[in-house]
């Protein structure tokens, strides 16, 4: 049984990392544990539990930022923002249920460290675009910070971007500052319900491309093929009997009404059109955000998240499904493919990565049993030059490999 260290203050956190460095003791960094099974399995002698470093330090709605300790639950933050009519615009997902954990366990540190984003990614960016600054302890046992609380900031290298998506392999953040933005007054979703038999994914790409290339400011564009649509808890979606393409419009009331009518007339020839109002819209987009179509699907042993040029989404997905058994659905206008696979050798990694080789992009094995995550590269393999840089960055931040060693790549 490994040691679990649970610092409660920044000083204790520093002491903990210093101890790990001096003892050369690799640590798993964890807080809520919702994404503990995301990444490669690690051999760590100790666990650094950040959940006691919790709480909002500063929330200034007029200045559009919140600073919280890294172990603060997203649920607590979302509630605080909601009270002021604000939100995190990148729609941080809750991957807990997908990965077999409870819902609402995620923390601000985990969201930043995994650089996740929901459907609004296409308009508002990912966690990387919303982390304004942080304080951290590096794997050298040194306290450092980067960024600040303001959006416009070109003061030295942008380490916030580097920390976002580094899976805790470089430093342990103690405090994170995220941008906050006003909630939209009104939300509407247009559904295109496909009646054509067989393959309609290509048509969905066209609808989404048309909508995202319009001036209607679409803030969500997803396509659920029939199986995924049937799994939705929203009646209009699960009862459609076929695939459903969804387009979200948000903003001031009169604006949403206007854009809804304009967009409707532009896409009406593709299929039957339905509309979701606020409550159903919220539910639907949360389902997309949290990969709900694949939650509880024990037959889908592996879940991949594939990021590609949006117009290539259906071509790549259907190419993969020609040789592997599984299901897909699309977010980000086709640019993010969620792929659930039935048991297959190496989780289908070779087929998937070959499929995206020409278009560019990356495929991440989000869900798989630990032994498979140990054998198959979970993160998109790096080019030689990238691997060299990534290795040197790891060495610069965590030379002894005490923080989440091997979580992303062998040695990183």
């Amino acid at each position: 049984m490994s040691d679990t260290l649970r610092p409660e203050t920044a000083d204790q956190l520093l002491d903990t990392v210093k101890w790990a460095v001096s003892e050369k003791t690799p640590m798993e960094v964890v807080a809520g544990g919702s994404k503990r099974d995301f990444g490669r399995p690690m051999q760590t002698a100790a666990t650094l539990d950040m959940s006691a470093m919790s709480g909002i330090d500063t929330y200034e709605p007029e200045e559009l930022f919140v600073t919280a300790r890294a172990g603060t639950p997203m649920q607590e933050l979302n509630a605080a923002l909601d009270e002021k009519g604000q939100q995190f615009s990148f729609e941080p997902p809750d991957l807990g249920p997908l990965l077999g954990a409870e819902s609402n366990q995620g923390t601000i540190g985990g969201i930043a460290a995994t650089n996740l984003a929901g459907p609004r990614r296409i308009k508002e960016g990912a966690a990387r675009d919303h982390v304004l600054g942080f304080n951290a302890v590096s794997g050298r046992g040194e306290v450092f910070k980067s960024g600040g609380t303001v959006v416009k900031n070109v003061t030295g290298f942008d380490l916030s971007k580097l920390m976002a998506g580094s899976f805790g392999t470089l430093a342990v953040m103690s405090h994170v500052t995220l941008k906050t933005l006003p909630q939209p007054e009104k939300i509407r979703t247009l559904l295109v319900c496909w009646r054509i038999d067989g393959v309609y994914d290509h048509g969905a790409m066209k609808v989404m491309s048309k909508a995202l290339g319009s001036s209607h400011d679409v803030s969500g564009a997803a396509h659920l093929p029939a199986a995924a649509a049937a799994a939705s808890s929203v009646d209009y979606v699960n009862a459609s009997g076929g695939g459903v393409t969804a387009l979200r419009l948000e903003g001031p009331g009169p604006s949403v009404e206007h854009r809804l009518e304009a967009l409707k007339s532009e896409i009406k020839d593709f299929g039957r059109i339905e509309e979701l109002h606020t409550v159903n819209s919220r539910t639907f987009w949360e389902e997309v955000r949290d990969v709900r179509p694949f939650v509880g699907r024990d037959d889908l042993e592996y879940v991949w998240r594939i990021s590609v040029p949006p117009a290539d989404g259906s071509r790549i997905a259907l190419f993969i499904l020609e040789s592997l058994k599984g299901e897909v659905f699309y977010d980000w206008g086709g640019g993010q493919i969620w792929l659930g696979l039935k048991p297959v050798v190496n989780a289908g990694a070779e087929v998937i990565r070959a499929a995206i080789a020409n278009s560019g992009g990356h495929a991440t094995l989000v869900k798989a049993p630990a032994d498979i995550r140990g054998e198959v590269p979970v993160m998109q393999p790096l080019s030689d030059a990238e691997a060299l840089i990534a290795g040197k960055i790891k060495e610069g931040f965590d030379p002894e490999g005490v923080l989440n060693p091997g979580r992303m790549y062998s040695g990183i």
Partner: protein
Amino acid sequence: MPKPDESVIARRAELAAALREIVPGEGVIDTEEELRAFDCDGLMAYKQLPLIVVLPETTEQVSKVLKYCHENSVKIVPRGAGTGLSGGALPLADAITLGLGKFKQILDIDFENRCVVTQPGVTNLGITQAVEHAGFYYAPDPSSQIACSIGGNVAENSGGVHCLKYGLTTNNVLGVEMVLMNGDVVRFGGKHLDAGGYDLLGVITGSEGLLGVITEVTVRILKKPEVARALLIGFPTMLDAGKCVADVIADGIIPGGMELMDKPIIHATEDFVHAGYPLDVEGLMIVELDGPEAEVAYLVERVEKIARACNATTVRISESDDERARFWSGRKNAFPAVGRISPDYICVDGTIPRKKLAEVLERISEYSEKHGLRVANVFHAGDGNLHPLVLFDANQPGELEAAEALCADILTLCVEVGGVLSGEHGIGVEKRDLMGTMFTEDDLKQQQRVKCAFDPEHLLNPGKVYPELHRCAELGKMHIHHGKLPFPDIPRF
């Protein structure tokens, strides 16, 4: 600046000959007369002749030049259009200035994926011009957009008046091709979103030419909003104006742009472009709202109401694109207008929390008196990005020094009130020595360890951004804190 290496300077002819083997014809410049054109960037108070200027035309040439310089320990200063305001492209006496001015092709316009792949020497406005026939545009719009290059925008993480709503360069760049100092060509990002591993694209953006030389850029483009309208709002005090900025944001409105000018700017620009600005106000604000007609009409009304509640004395709403352009004409000509009332000026670039505006402006006027120099203020008010223009006459002994001291005071103040040293112009040479006001030694060392991963010999753009570059071997050393677990009170399980 770092002391020039005389032994490299002595090898100038030999280096020029070797570089001509890589970049034939007129792409290698080494006569004093021609080098003169490259002796500064937009920070014109500093001038230095480069050792040699090389203007390659292909990625392969860039790669070979860097590889050669790497092998011969010759420093490189990358340069885009040379419009930067912080001295990021200031030449070094012992370094080659590598200009990307010949990389002028747009490579791919992809409306389906809503992006453009371009060479770095294309201007910011050039991208918009290439796609506007289809109703698209590239959102970040630095005021130098007619001249500045997209490669330079990536290096500086440029902003502009519309980044409040649409983000900075870093939020609008999807990918780059970059040549490392050893000549390796790498790609970060592409037409897809986000990185599969470390977000190196995010690190490159705003790295001021210290990590590599950008040879290709992929940016996202947006469909133009249906309409845009602007409100021109005059306030009796800057305090009222500052409150209006905060109240608009607090009301849940993120305008396309929200700019503020103080009295000296209002008068200087009105004399210059006759935009019709009211001259009896202390603060003048331009708020631009864009989107569908219905949204814009709705928000214009709300902003007007907020402005009136903040004691606005004049509120004018643009009724046409011509009128909107007229509202903006003064603001967009603020710098040349100030050039007419002062022989020289320095444009300061710091960011502050919005709520500190009034306090900061008051302190700036105190500093202005203390140093005996005039200051005029323009302000990207929506995101707290302040541009005080410090007016001076370089021909008067001591005035440049006084102006620089005044700038340093203002920037130190920005940090003191919770802001940062640079909002969009970068640190370069200009603000380098102030980095210590914002960062500790450990903060700066950790940033430099990123530099070591890309350019361990510090050959790329040395003397910029960081006051002192530590040797990478030194930075790599571990200080092990020996001993047992020094925290008996940490909960363990």
